[in-house]
């Protein structure tokens, strides 16, 4: 832990953070206006997003430059490891809130509405069988089965975990060809996953009458899978950046935390999917 740090790298003053704050200001106000149906909303939101992209480009260009320039010693590397681990932990807690909501709605609130006084007087005839869209839902919907697209997607993501590990081993053995192939395969699988996820949503909206507005089931289904899909997108974009860097010859067998951090993230997204598959689709 506290090994003698000869010289810990402290970056120069940077104007990127303030760009980031400006971007957040534009995006937040834009989103609020847009949600309240004010015309300026989408413009502000996109402007903010554009500034955010600029900031990410600039900031990460700095980081990559510093890394390739050899500024990051052993100690900085350890910091990155801690930082990424805790970041992933924070993501775990974010998903935990939504899994908690799923648990609560499924195990507590839906049965509560069907039982006791509420079932007897308020919502007569409402049965608590899950999946449920609640006593106020008019109409029919079908839940998403586990063994069609979702099962294929599970296979895709698990395979992508394997190809990524293959790439990592190749990097350690300095086999650049396999590294690039493994990464490309991972990215391909990731995008395939996303494509099928979109197909699944189309199927849900078009044929199952399963929507975000389909009560507790629809809310938890789309919010959980949606946030997961968003994270897969982020992970896939990060993998693309890593692939581009690999093609440029970045990373060494003993110094490649950029690669590893993204790989950790990808595995995390993978594990969340497994939980989703079991708790949202299957059971």
């Amino acid at each position, binding site marked *: 832990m506290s090994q003698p740090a000869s010289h810990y790298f402290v*970056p120069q003053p940077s104007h990127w953070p303030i760009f980031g704050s400006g971007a957040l*200001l534009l995006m*937040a106000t834009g989103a609020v206006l847009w949600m309240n149906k004010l015309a300026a909303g989408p413009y502000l939101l996109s402007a903010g997003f554009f500034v955010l992209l600029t900031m990410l480009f600039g900031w990460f260009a700095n980081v990559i430059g510093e890394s390739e320039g050899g500024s990051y010693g052993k100690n900085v590397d350890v910091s990155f490891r801690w930082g990424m681990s805790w970041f992933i932990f924070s993501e775990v807690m974010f998903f935990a809130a939504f899994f908690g909501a799923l648990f609560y*709605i499924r195990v507590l609130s839906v049965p509560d509405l069907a039982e006791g006084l509420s079932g007897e007087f308020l919502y007569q005839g409402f049965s608590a069988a899950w999946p449920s869209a609640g006593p106020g839902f008019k109409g029919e919907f079908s839940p998403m089965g586990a063994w069609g697209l979702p099962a294929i997607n599970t296979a895709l993501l698990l395979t992508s975990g394997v190809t990524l590990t293959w790439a990592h081993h190749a990097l350690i053995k300095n086999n650049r060809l396999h590294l690039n192939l493994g990464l490309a395969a991972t990215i391909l699988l990731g995008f395939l996953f996303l494509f099928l996820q979109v197909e699944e949503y189309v199927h849900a909206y078009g044929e199952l009458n399963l929507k975000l507005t389909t009560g507790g089931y629809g809310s938890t289904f789309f919010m959980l899978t949606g946030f997961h899909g968003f994270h897969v997108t982020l992970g896939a974009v990060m993998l693309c950046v890593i692939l581009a860097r690999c093609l440029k010859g970045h990373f060494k067998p003993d110094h490649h935390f950029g690669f590893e951090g993204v790989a950790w993230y990808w595995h995390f997204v993978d594990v969340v999917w497994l939980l989703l598959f079991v708790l949202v689709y299957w059971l």
Partner: protein
Amino acid sequence: MAHEHAIGGHAGHDDHEHHGPPSGIMRWITTTNHKDIGSMYLWFSFIMFLVGGAMALVIRAELFQPGLQVVSPDFFNQMITLHALIMVFGAIMPAFVGFSNWMIPLQIGAPDMAFARMNNWSFWILPVASFLLILSMFVPGGAPGTGWTLYPPLSVQQGMGMDLAIFGIHLLGMSSIMGGINIITTILNMRAPGMTLMKMPMFCWTWLITAFLLIASMPVLAGAVTMLLTDRHFGTTFFNAAGGGDPVLFQHIFWFFGHPEVYIIALPAFGVISQVIPAFSRKPIFGYASMVYAIAAIAIISFFVWAHHMYVTGIPLTGQLYFMYATMIIAVPTGVKVFNWVATMWKGSLSFETPMLFALGFLFLFTLGGFSGLVLAITAVDILLQETYYVIAHFHYVMVAGAVFSAYAGAYYWLPKWTGYMYDETLGKWHFWLTLIFFNMTFFVQHFLGLAGMPRRVPDYALQFTEFNMISSIGAFGLGISQLLFLYIVLKARKSGKKVDAQVWDGAEGLEWTVPSPAPYHTFETPPVFEGGKH
């Protein structure tokens, strides 16, 4: 503790990296220096303290007499919400993050925070978030009138001010998570050689654990307000029984964040007190290891007590009993801490400069707030007292007399190190006594109001509550005005204070006192050798 090492750290390494900071406003906007960022946090938090305080005074002005005089009930509710959000997220939390930025690298002998650039962003998100919160007052429908707890269904029905608040909270959460990651990494990875975890100053320990609480609980709050947002605009039914959801679900998620949040505020306050009391008792802290375990125990238990805020939501009796006992168990490690602070003073050679006075004020009044917390933990009692002024009195004893007093203790303690100048001790004592007296005048009587049944969050009240409310309001204005004295003291110290040397207080220990005062712009670029503490 360690004494000989490269002070200020410029010694012997040629440096193309440090030309000193850019000048003017760009210095503050682009800085990656933990001292600059710490100072910005502290100034920002003080400004927000005044803003939130002004809002509290609007509330207290309205409550000076029964009937409606000053503001509309709707605006009154908005003030309640914004006062609390600004005080909690804008004043208290940034104040302690400011301390952590300034002091953790100095205390552990690190050149800066682990992620110095991200540190800048953590800070500069705060003004944006606060702007969104304040902006919400000026949009159609005004700021949220729900109270800071944002309970649905009311929060689902509010106007667009609610959306601004939701995004404001998202940004505050982002800032806190980045700050937490930065602090935890700095402490775990950048301690000077020889400084093992169990030799670390107590302030660093409290922040290590607070950072964990931040990282674990802020994302949960983000989840809660995200569900609120989609319930409001996208037709989800998390908190709507018609869809199988439940408004009470929001309360569960909110308080799963909310209770750890009170320790996010309290633990760093404990940390400051654990530095100040030994310094002015001229004794090492009593029971160092038990202090550490107590902090850890408090933090862990804090995740398992959330429903003590929900005794009357219809949770089952077994649930009520469990949450009652679990809550009371927190009193054990907290009691350990109070005992240790008292034992530290036992037979010490005490002196009572302003930091010590605030620390003692903290000790008495925080303990009182802890006791009223125990009273509220009793389910049967809370059923009567919840949503009354008793609750307001309780948490202002822990938030104001706990966190704010501790922040003042820390500010007076370290101000000479930051600026190189001593503050005016007489004025500091005035500040303390005025704050102490007006604080109790404001909040002590609220216990009686609550016991007599006066509800909180209501702009009007029954006639029999008048006298106590008048006392409370007068106290509140006195309290507010006395805080301006602090601003004057700081400015005066920087203008005409006596110069101090490195060891400002004769009883103070730690690496921060080995660097000159004011602490040079860059410190510990070469890590010092830490030769073990006395604990």
